[in-house]
């Protein structure tokens, strides 16, 4: 039986697509896991929207400078060649199209690339928007990591987003627990699918027409024990 990827595996798979020399912003949640799975022979600069270009490894517990934090409010370190700046400069960098890739989480992605990731319409919850809208319009390529379906098996890849949009027509690639998909003029195009999953079942789990790339292949990832 087909085994969906866990969180670390999804993040690992996304990380393999980060090229040498790339400037990359990772959203909170699964995206930020990609940093630790990036191939070690590649020189990648991770940007943090609160003002770091070149986020390094997490310090040992209790170590590090509490005034040096990333967008997830974690104490971090800097890598060689890192720089620090203020939020206005950071979002000038983001909005100005200087980041090669942003990887974001999402509630829904539509077949035209629309992204919904900031407002799940929870009753009685105040809104939380953060930097997602700026990243979604600013980065040269917007990738999404998310589960293919909700827990109730409703699709997250949809014809039209029902949640409020983060940005219009921006998503280029999606890493799910079942597949890697691109978005192009055809809509969702599966490039990789987990071994053992029927194409028809993937299509059924997808809320919009699904095309399979001519060279669609197996989606595999190393084992990670993330307690998922």
């Amino acid at each position: 039986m087909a085994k969906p990827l866990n969180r670390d595996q999804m993040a690992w798979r996304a990380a393999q697509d980060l090229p040498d020399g790339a400037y990359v912003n990772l959203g909170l949640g699964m995206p930020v896991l990609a940093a630790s799975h990036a191939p070690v022979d590649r020189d990648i600069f991770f940007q943090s929207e609160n003002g770091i270009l070149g986020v390094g490894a997490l310090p040992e517990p209790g170590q590090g400078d509490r005034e040096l934090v990333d967008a997830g409010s974690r104490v971090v370190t800097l890598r060689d060649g890192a720089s620090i700046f203020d939020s206005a400069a950071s979002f000038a960098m983001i909005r100005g199209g200087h980041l090669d890739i942003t990887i974001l989480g999402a509630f829904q992605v539509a077949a035209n690339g629309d992204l919904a990731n900031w407002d799940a319409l929870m009753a009685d919850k105040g809104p939380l928007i953060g930097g997602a809208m700026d990243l979604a319009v600013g980065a040269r390529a917007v990738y999404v990591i998310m589960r293919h379906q909700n827990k109730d098996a409703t699709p997250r890849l949809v014809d039209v987003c029902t949640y409020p949009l983060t940005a219009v027509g921006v998503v280029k690639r999606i890493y799910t627990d079942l597949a890697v998909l691109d978005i192009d003029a055809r809509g969702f195009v599966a490039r990789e699918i987990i071994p053992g999953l029927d194409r028809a079942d993937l299509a059924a789990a997808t809320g919009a027409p699904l095309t399979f790339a001519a060279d669609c292949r197996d989606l595999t990832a190393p084992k990670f024990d993330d307690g998922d």
Partner: protein
Amino acid sequence: MINKQVGDLAAAMLGIQSGAALMISGFGNAGIPANLVRALAPMDLTGLTLIINAIRRLDDCDAALFNEQRISHVITTAFRGPGAMPANFEAQWQRGDVTLEIVPQGTFAERIRAGGAGIPAFFTPTAAGTTLAEGREQRLFGGRMCVLEEALKADFALLRAQKADRFGNLFFRGTQANFGTAMAAAAEITVVEVDEISATPLPPEQIHLPGIYVDRVLQAPRLD
């Protein structure tokens, strides 16, 4: 002679009145002016507008501000706290005691930067085509839809830095600067708490924010 150092919290907070608009810097636990924020609640103010990136940081810092219903309006990028129970301010928002303007973080930073830079309004692609743009002026530039955003200004800005000198020049450590540099320029009066006030002028290559933007510096230990 210019000397922007003040001796105590009372001098630092002088002039903040009911109805004032306050910008408060900080991101995560970096650059939070916790001493100044905690001095607000006892001041018997009402009708404050807060311009702050993440309102729950303030709730962490001094929930008394909300307990005492001193705040009537919040401009922020993140209003929701984590966890199942609504935070204190969230309950007040649900009751309608606090009104809210939610702003994407990059637009938030740029509106504040514009406020200090004499730019009254600008177009940005951020939020175009979303519910946040409804009822707002949108326009195509280079084939791309953009939203008109207006500058944000305030009566006071509160920030934390690592070092200052008597001229008000600031040095930030780590990611302390975040919204502070923009806020300092966008507010009428900027008050900064610092670890250290240098007896000699900060060397130009250490200055992240020129003293022209700073009105008062108070030496005060970092609060958790």
